[in-house]
Structure formats: structure tokens, C-alpha cells
């Protein structure tokens, strides 16, 4: 349980940093990009460049937030509970979505990126998607665990 607590707290810190980064990105880049299109006119998506990046970060944030909440519930209510199962499934789905959207966007922006950066980004995105799939598997484990726990609890 200590490791789960550690993971939950680490994710909380990551989420707080992501929120800060997201707010800063919206204030500094998104608004300035909309006000002064000259800053981003060389980008594929023009004035929406930073907005799209912000939406990507938001997607990642919501996914990680769900995972963190699921872990927190696990610490409070024990390993097998329905909230952790639901939050893990939601978090996993969002991370897969984030990975897929990022891969698509990276491929669309292929002309703006050099090859080594592109490969690096794609590997990161694939791994994020794999973490998402891992979370879906974890969610299934928890789901089966709930049934087994109920069976054990109701065996007299």
C-alpha cells in the first residue's frame, strides 16, 4: 500500500505541475497567438497551434487525474473497489486517446519537425498509449478482483 500511496502522491504532484503548465500555456501562448497571429504563422495550424497543444495537455491531464483519483480511492477503500475500476478505465481510455491524437498530429506536422524529434515524439506517444492499454488491463484485474472479493466475503 505504501507504493500505491507514493504513486498517488507523485501523480498528484505531476498533475499540479501539468495544471500550472496548462494555465501558463493558455495565458502566454494561446492568447498571444490569437492576438498576434504573426508569432505562429509559420506553423501548420496557424493561430490554433498553441490551442491544439493546450487541448492535448488537457486530455493528458484529465487522464492522469482519473488515474490519480483511482489510486487515492484504492488507498482509502482497499485494493478492489468499483471507483478504482471505473477511474482506471476512464484514465486508460483517455491516455490511449491522447497517444492516438498526438501520433496523428505529429504525422500531420511532419514537415515542421526534424526526423529525430519526430521519432522521439512518436515513441513517447506510443508508450503513452501502451500505458493506457495497461490501465485498461489493470481495470479488468480490479473488476475480477471485486467479484472474487465478494465471493470470499460471502463464503461463510
Amino acid at each position: 500500500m505504501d507504493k500505491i500511496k507514493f504513486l498517488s502522491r507523485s501523480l498528484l504532484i505531476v498533475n499540479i505541475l501539468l495544471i500550472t503548465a496548462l494555465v501558463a500555456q493558455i495565458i502566454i501562448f494561446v492568447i498571444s497567438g490569437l492576438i498576434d497571429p504573426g508569432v505562429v504563422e509559420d506553423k501548420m495550424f496557424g493561430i490554433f497551434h498553441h490551442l491544439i497543444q493546450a487541448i492535448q495537455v488537457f486530455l493528458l491531464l484529465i487522464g492522469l487525474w482519473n488515474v490519480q483519483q483511482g489510486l487515492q480511492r484504492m488507498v482509502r477503500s482497499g485494493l478492489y473497489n468499483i471507483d478504482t475500476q471505473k477511474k482506471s478505465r476512464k484514465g486508460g481510455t483517455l491516455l490511449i486517446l491522447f497517444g492516438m491524437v498526438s501520433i496523428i498530429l505529429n504525422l500531420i506536422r511532419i514537415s515542421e519537425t526534424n526526423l529525430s524529434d519526430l521519432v522521439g515524439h512518436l515513441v513517447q506517444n506510443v508508450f503513452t498509449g501502451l500505458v493506457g492499454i495497461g490501465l485498461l488491463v489493470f481495470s479488468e484485474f480490479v473488476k475480477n478482483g471485486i467479484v472474487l472479493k465478494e465471493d470470499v466475503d460471502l463464503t461463510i
Partner: protein
Amino acid sequence: MPIVVNLDAMLSRKNIKSKELAEIIGITTANLSILKSGKARAIRFSTLEAICKALDCQPADILEFVDE
């Protein structure tokens, strides 16, 4: 469930209270209540043995199959 637990009938026949039986067989009254109400998913042989010993009866006196 087609398996019916006739523990209440046996308890009244032997004139033993639920709380007493729970203490004798070493389970909580909450668990005994789950067993009596038919909400239990399974019963351990050790529990069944303890109940039979405490009530001086056979498993068939407690458990009954009723085709639904």
C-alpha cells in the same frame, strides 16, 4: 438460489439463539445472518461441520435443494 438454508427452523427446534450458535461455531452474528438469509455464496465444510456438531444434526437438515 435453489439451495435453501433451513437454519432458522433448526435453531428453533433445538431452542438455540443465533447469537449462541455464532459463538459456538466461531463466526460473527453478521455472517450467520448472511447464511440464514440465503445471501451467502458458499459455505465452508469447516463451518458446516461446526454447525452440525453444535446442533447435533446432518447437513441435509440445514441445506435443502428446491427446484425452481
